[in-house]
């Protein structure tokens, strides 16, 4: 499943920032790098699609994350069975 690295920009509010970092540190799928100012490098590594989505949803909904930039994404595992994984869109009735 995907390995994705990103840069998160954190809130400048100290309490919110600290809470966000604590949440990130306690999230198993997330590996944190060294922060540079408000910007924190992260890697998300999840075992399956459901957890990948859950991890991203959680990350995007953190109130202390103000901006997300992607750097890298590997979906080589996904591409082995991509036709089944990447769905069709339901059309206009």
């Amino acid at each position, binding site marked *: 499943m995907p*390995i*994705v*690295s*990103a*840069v998160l*920009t954190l809130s400048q509010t100290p309490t919110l920032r600290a809470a966000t970092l604590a949440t990130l540190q306690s999230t198993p799928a997330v*590996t944190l*790098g*060294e*922060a*540079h*100012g*408000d*910007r*924190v*490098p*992260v*890697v998300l*590594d999840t075992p399956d*699609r459901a957890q*990948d*989505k859950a991890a*991203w*949803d959680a990350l*995007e909904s953190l109130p202390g994350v*103000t*901006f*997300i*930039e*992607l*750097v*890298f*994404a*590997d*979906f*080589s*595992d*996904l*591409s082995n069975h*991509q*036709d*089944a*994984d*990447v*769905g*069709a*869109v*339901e*059309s*206009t*009735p």
Partner: protein
Amino acid sequence: MTPDRREFLKLSALAAASAAAAGTFAQEAAAEDPTRAYGPGVRWDKAPCRFCGTGCHVQVGVEKGKIVAIAGDPQAEVNKGLLCVKGYHVGLALYGEDRLRTPMLRKNGQLVPISWEEAIQTIADRVMMDPAGFAMYGSGQWTIPEGYAAQKLMKGGIANNQIDPNARLCMASAVTGFLAVYGVDEPAGCYTDLDECDVLICWGNNPAEMHPVLFSRVIDRRNRGEEVLLIDIGTRRTRTTAHAQHFLEFEPNTDLAIANGVAHLLLKSGTYDKDFVSKHCNFRKPSEPAALEGAAMSFEEFSAALAPFTPEYVERLSGVPAKDIRMLAGLFGRRDLKITSLWCMGMNQHTRGTAINSLVHGVHLLSGHFGRPGDAPTSLTGQPSACGTVREVGTLSHALPGGGVVTKDEHRANAEKLWNLPAGRISAKPGYHTVEMWKRWSTPKKDGGDIHTIWVQVTNPGQTLPNRSLLVDPGVKDPDKFLICSDVYPTATTQIADLILPSAMWVEKNGMFGNSERRTQQWFKMVSPPGDARDDCWQTIAVAKELHRRGHPGMLDKDGRFLFTFADAQGREVPVWEWRRYYELNVDKALFEEYRLFSRTKHKDLAPYDEYVKARGLRWPVVQQPDGTWRETRFRFSEFDDPYVKKGAEIEFYHSTTKDGRAQIWFHPADPPPESPDGQYPFWLCTGRVLEHWHSGTMTRRIPQLRAAMPQAYVEMNRHDAQKLGIQNGETVRLTTRRGSITLPVWIDGRGDPPPGSLFVPFFDERIQINLLTLHEYDPFSKQPDYKKCAVSVTRIVS
């Protein structure tokens, strides 16, 4: 993937993100590049992202014929190794299970698979039955060579000028604004302005969501401790507002009054840049009859015209407090600051689009905030090659490659010379603009509907045209009309198409794009398209060849050669209209080398194709240096960077409409819009995009992560309005305008926050066709419709 490899990949990914976070990714690219974690089985190559107009470069990893990884390109100046969420998924966009794989023709009401031969024959039949009524409708997603081939077919071959792109719907007013002010299209500045400005003003623009990688430059600068004052002038709060120090909320359509108010104060306070204006500017006003060049006016007349636009008067019109108008004018009046303005659809999708574009340029010119890095009025585009293909190749119905227009004898003569056509081949009559083209296609021939067939490539008008019932209503389609659609997925347009052609997309073909900062970018084909999908460019050339075979006289040049004749390095002609031979030579290169000869017409010089192979894009004009190298231009019209500015001139507008090297500062009155809320339709309706989905969602809605993140369209509503109407969050409401009605859920306190009396609906969801409700009224110069404001009513649906 083995655990060791996975761990190595994670470490590489983290190192790359760390370098990006530290802002050193570009310098440390060689060491931190995550692509190094892969073995020789994965081949990496560069390509620009195929979504928005920012033009981020990605590195694409391919293994066994499929894309397995995407990385931001640290060598790319545009994005410095960063991508937005759509860029991350750009590789997956190719692999939806319902990719179109074979041509299909509607027979007895049913779509049935046919051969490519039958498909090409069918198109040729439609052309030959009445060439004058055959049209092409493309987009800013056409690659440069694709758009150029279509342009040559329609203007040099079939020669009816009936070609227009969907970019008419998104940036045509930016074009007419640039032409009216500078006499030549496209921004003078570049993205470097975002790194250099002290003040960034977003005029009806939401780059935090729509151009996030560009916006991240501001985030990055602030992170490094730099002060960037961000002012958001808008009709609803967005993610950009969250980063702004000032939010100036204005009543829809009153942005003209705001710009006039700023100009008025600059004059009244004497803080306008007298030296800049006296050396480099003229004054202009609307003319009778209306013309893009307008009529001359004196400084005194200009000043008198602005006199009514006091801060208090502007506040009454716009709702923006007078103190904020003074704040804006105060900033523009300071020479020690550098100010960049950004805009996109908010100013362009506007029935006064040309006017407001001209006024914002005018504020910058009047205040001298122009021509230095960080001092720039800059329009952004929504599509990856709206600039490169639509504006530069000129796929608009009135345009010719390189900035020419069909109405000018010398431009037609130049095109005929470069295409080796007999004199008089190109028609001097512009084709129909988008709204008119589709209206005529939707009107029976006996009632004046003289367009019988439209061939759509790389766009989805069945979802994106305004006032859809009027322009492309499948329920009233005349049986004599015919719709051809080349696309990669089933769309709202393929649902009503008579002939569907499966296309290759992005890195399934060679390509070139031109982004919002005049940067031309190139990539090579990396993977094969699915099934029998084929390049759009090949489709165009194959139809041209079939027309040639049938004796259409326009398919020959004046020496009797087929219009699309290509030779290999040994000079042998290659029949590229035969699909199996299409990639025997690089058709993109051949077309680009032909096209770039046009680019000198208006000093938009392009380098040879091979220079773009080496680069992460080059910004035109790209001029060859004495040592043989090619130098791009970051800041046009400024002597320090633009080789076409005369020595000693400092600033020179060398395509000035007044032929004196000066730009035009315009006055435009602040007139009301064609439709405003009233008792029956009491709300403003604004439409637009969201971060996760790109335009009509045909690609991004097939990516599970993006679909899950933003599953369906909604209407954003102000909490107070919802309370008044007894509407709860998530409840379904009916929106009704004079043109139609739809139902959809309400989102209160959502991502955006419209003020009381105003609603917002995104257009990405084909199941919720917001364009059944929008206006088709358009700007008189650009012919661009207004998707940002019409009157609507809201009714709670009681289950």
